[in-house]
């Protein structure tokens, strides 16, 4: 379960989030929709403790994130799979090594890793790019490696911050299908996007965000921001 309770995040004089309250139950699929600058990435950063809220409480599973100390953050972050908007692939590791890294952190054995990584690369259509470094991959390819890394260790929650931003229609549909599939198997998915097309095709809960405020929160929602 993830819960934001009257969360405000103030950067200098801009309020990136303003008194935001919502709750995501285990197994849910939630799209967070909003224009650029609405506060979507800020929500992601608060979930993994990359930023701290100015006010309010944030719960992720049994963790009260706003109270975690620096050395307690790694454990939280391993429980959540994050697809970062800017990918955040480790530049000195190949595609396969980036994915392995998440499994290592999850404490998996080497033989397991050797099995899972090629499967995952195959699933995101990058079997032939396993040994390429991030700077040898296109934006869309990097994004798919980031997605593979976020879900390979089967975390209870996957948070994807505009994971289709760099993909063409075909790859976008593939990624959305992938997210829906892991959600079917029980993973909680939080998807941030600014794409009407994406949101309307999913037909699940939608939280709309504008200027840091929640303007609507609907089951089976549609893209409502003008």
């Amino acid at each position: 379960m993830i819960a934001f309770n009257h969360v405000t995040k103030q950067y200098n004089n801009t309020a990136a989030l303003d008194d935001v309250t919502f709750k995501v139950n285990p197994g849910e699929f939630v799209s967070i929709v909003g224009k650029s600058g609405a506060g979507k990435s800020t929500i992601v950063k608060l979930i993994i403790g990359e930023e701290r809220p100015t006010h309010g409480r944030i719960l992720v599973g049994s963790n009260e994130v706003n109270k975690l100390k620096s050395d307690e953050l790694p454990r939280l972050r391993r429980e959540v799979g994050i697809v970062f908007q800017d990918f955040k692939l480790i530049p000195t590791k190949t595609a396969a090594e980036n994915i392995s890294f998440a499994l290592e952190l999850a404490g998996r054995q080497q033989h397991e890793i050797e099995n899972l990584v090629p499967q995952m690369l195959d699933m995101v259509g990058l079997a032939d790019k396993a040994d390429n470094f991030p700077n040898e991959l296109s934006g869309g390819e990097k994004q798919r490696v980031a997605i593979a890394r976020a879900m390979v260790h089967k975390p209870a929650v996957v948070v994807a911050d505009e994971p289709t931003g760099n993909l063409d229609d075909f790859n976008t549909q593939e990624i959305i299908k992938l997210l829906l599939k892991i959600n079917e198997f029980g993973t909680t998915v939080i998807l941030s996007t600014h794409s009407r097309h994406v949101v309307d095709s999913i037909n699940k809960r939608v939280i709309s965000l504008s200027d840091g405020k929640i303007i609507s929160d609907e089951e089976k929602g549609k893209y409502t921001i003008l």
Partner: protein
Amino acid sequence: MATTLARIIKYGVQNFLRNGWLSAVTILVMVLALFVFNSLVIFNFLTDSASFALKDKIDISVYFKEITGEDDILKVGKNLEALPEVRAVEYISKENALKIFSDAHKEDVVISSALEELGGNPLLASLNVKAKDPNDYDKIASYLENSSFFAAIEKVTYAQNQLVINRLAQVVNALENVGISVVIVLALIASLVTFNTIRLGIYSNREELGIMRLVGASNKYIRGPYIVNGILYGIIAGVLSLVIAAPIVSLASPYLSAFMPDVSLSNYFYGNLSKLLGYQLMFGMLLGSVSSVIAVRRYLKI
């Protein structure tokens, strides 16, 4: 646990190899630092041997009156040996004194013939006393003056060249202090340059450090490979700096022996090679790993 350690070591070696140029430059800088450290050890050895050789030439001789028996003299010798300031006491009998004297003046016709004419042995038995510290001769002299056997003593002489030797020893001491200070400052500078080189290398990896934190790596797991990296630098640089020092020592050693015949730099170097290597490795690995830890720390705050 074992897997984690194995992975940390694997990544340390991998970083080292993938950043070949950076590793080479860091090692080069570190070799310079270790080379300075080496000079410190060798310089210390040289000044120590020089001042020891000089101080060893200082002594006092206690001459006993004709009538004093050998047993009594030896007893005084025992008493002197028991003093904490005394390093060695040597007994020189009348006969030995004569032999030493005539050997020393074999070539001198006047003295030889004078001795012959004299017939007997005009020389006195003596105890030759060496102190542990040349500053303690005054103490030993005053002990003698206040002792019960003062009556048996004819005279106490400092070696004739004592003053000169003392001055020289002071010069060597001063040289040692100045030299060591200079070398320590150089070693500090070299260490700082090494630290900075390692820091720059890690600075260029800062993005990676932040990402690892964000995907849930613990600080230990992030830091580990860099420590391994630093240790590798230390090992390679330690061995290299000795490999470079060896021919220099072999070349310089004969020249130094010309000044100080008792001192052999190359014997010292090769005799203590394992110890020197140990110091180098320790210093190098410490410098490498501590620098890495400090440099990485600031990127783990995210």
